[in-house]
């Protein structure tokens, strides 16, 4: 890791300068909202109100927030099943996201997608994908289209460390590089796939960064628990992509505080590892930094209280929503709104 870090010019990794204060405040607010939202989602799961499954990004907020803060509204997000934070970060309403997790009519997709498929095209959140690897190739398509339309839009695609070992990752990276697509691939290396550590099944130490050279890309490794670093790396990569410089592959080192999904306590992970990463929790870390640069604590407390209020309201609204109309079972398979396969 040190070796790679040393090779990485610091200025390139974290951008020209520290983010402006209003950017930092926006990032902090996003992270706090994500954290409170997901803690509530977890409670609702334990109460049986969030059904099926859910994959939380608790601990990984600095990646979602740092990148979202660096994106233009016209840029595209592609995420995985661990996509609540990325969806909220693009501005999708909390209540609609919560209602989707709960299978309610007010859900972002009226309950037809569920937690693993959060999508809000209006916010350029182009989908959460639950088959490992596929969405890297789809993000390429959005970037290709942007390039052909000369639209200046950049596609940003998030995925896990485990995703670097599936064929689609390599097909996507190669095509993106060959076609010089405006796409930024972001590997959230949280060290674990489901229940197996990435290091035990991967030929290289840094599953994404160490593969970058194979596609003619510079390795970029950032501290994914430091929102200033993720923001800085995002700015550099996104602007380069926007100005025709081609794709980037960024590995952000981070950690999930909880288990892989549902109520998994994550007990397969060594205690010392969990403790060390909890001590690097991106949110208190950022809070300390903001206080250090002179932000009034009362301002932060207000952000924290507002997040709680917003999550309370979102949960109430979602719970009050009825189940989806049953006509939706056979709706919207085709553009005509129906599902008929015969004429």
């Amino acid at each position, binding site marked *: 890791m040190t070796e790679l870090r040393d090779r990485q010019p610091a200025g390139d990794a974290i951008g020209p300068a520290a983010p402006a204060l209003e950017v930092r405040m926006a990032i902090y607010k996003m992270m706090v909202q994500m954290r409170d939202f997901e803690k509530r989602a977890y409670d609702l799961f334990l109460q049986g109100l969030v059904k099926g499954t859910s994959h939380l990004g608790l601990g990984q907020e600095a990646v979602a927030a740092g990148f979202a803060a660096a994106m233009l509204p016209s840029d595209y997000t592609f995420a995985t099943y661990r996509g609540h934070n990325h969806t909220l970060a693009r501005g999708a309403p909390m209540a609609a996201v919560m209602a989707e997790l709960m299978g309610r009519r007010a859900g972002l997709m009226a309950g*037809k997608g569920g937690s693993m498929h959060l999508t809000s095209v209006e916010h350029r959140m182009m989908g959460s994908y639950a*088959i490992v690897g596929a*969405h890297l190739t*789809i993000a390429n398509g959005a970037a290709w289209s942007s390039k*052909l339309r000369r639209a200046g*839009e950049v596609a940003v695609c998030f995925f896990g460390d485990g995703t670097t070992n599936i064929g*689609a990752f390599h097909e*996507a990276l190669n095509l993106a590089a060959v076609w010089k697509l405006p796409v930024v691939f972001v590997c959230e290396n949280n060290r674990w796939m489901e229940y197996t550590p990435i290091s035990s099944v991967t030929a290289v130490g840094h599953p994404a960064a160490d593969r970058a050279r194979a596609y003619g890309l510079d390795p970029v490794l950032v501290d994914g628990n430091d929102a200033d670093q993720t923001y800085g790396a995002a700015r550099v990569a996104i602007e380069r992509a926007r100005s025709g410089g081609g794709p980037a592959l960024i590995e952000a080192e981070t950690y999930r505080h909880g288990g892989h999904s549902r109520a998994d306590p994550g007990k397969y992970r060594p205690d010392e590892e969990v403790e060390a990463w909890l001590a690097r929790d991106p949110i208190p870390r950022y809070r300390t930094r903001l206080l250090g640069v002179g932000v009034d604590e009362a301002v932060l407390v207000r952000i924290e209280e507002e997040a709680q209020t917003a999550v309370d309201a979102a949960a109430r609204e979602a719970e009050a929503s009825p189940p989806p109309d049953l006509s939706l079972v056979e709706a919207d*398979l085709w553009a005509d709104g129906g599902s008929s396969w*015969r004429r």
Partner: protein
Amino acid sequence: MGGRGVVVAEMTYRDAVARGIAQEMDRDPSVVFLGEDVGAAGGVFKATVGLLDRFGPERVSDTPISEQAILGAAMGAAMTGLRPIAEIMFSDFFAVCWDLVANEIAKTRYMTHGQVALPLVIRTANGGGVRFGAQHSQSVENWAMAVPGLKVVAPSTPRDVVGLLAAAVRDPDPVIFFEQKSLYPTKGDVPDGEIVDTLGTAAVRRHGKDATIVALAAMVPRALEAADVLAGDGVEVTVIDLRSLVPLDVATVAASVVETGHLVTVEENPRLCGWGAEVASIVAEERLFDLDGPIVRVTTPHVPLPAADALEDAALPSVARIVDGVRRSLL
């Protein structure tokens, strides 16, 4: 020459592919085309010759051998304003990118409650008869038919290649377009000017009152040959070219079964779960009392296709097996 000044030219099925793609790319600048060897080389079947020169490398793109990346690019482009046509060189290769076809492209409109539209076409060379062996010959239109969210089209004539391809490109939903590779050198009349068909409309290729044969792609000309043989014995059959499996033109099939009382399906699919089984089950469920004999399915046996010409010919439905099938249905 056709009537009313419409010029009709004889053209191969192969050349009709390039003509159909060019017709749509000329009309709509958002139509783009990508695949392996499709540009500079003009396609491994030479079905896309001339498109690169005519439309340039931005709109006609040669790709690496990356079927998932090809379909992912098509999908991402379709969801952001383009209308891609992607080529999968051989339909057998769907097996290496089936996630994109069956999980991503097919399900996305539904899962997103209609937020995402995917107006894209995947063209592919399908089926046997060219002695390529089991991994380059299979008829897999039934795989696609089994996935909710895909439209499935398979033309049997050069004219239909142009008209159905245009309909597929203009359709707001994803369409899998199966070109039968043994048909590429076959010729047919194609009128001049724009041709646009309607998906989900079968064509009655021959009319007879004794039995109904339902066929697709390369099995259509074969069924017509069988009809000639049967006519020599005084048996007059209707031959329906389905042209599209999804949407399925049940009405045309049912109307014919009501008239003839006998149904034979002729398909290249291996026996189990071939599309003929679906057609047979619909007719059995909805038109049982209009039938005067058993429904007969003529299929490839439940085997991969062998390579040797003698073996492949024995596996694929032949004129003799179709004639025999009709006779069994008339019992």
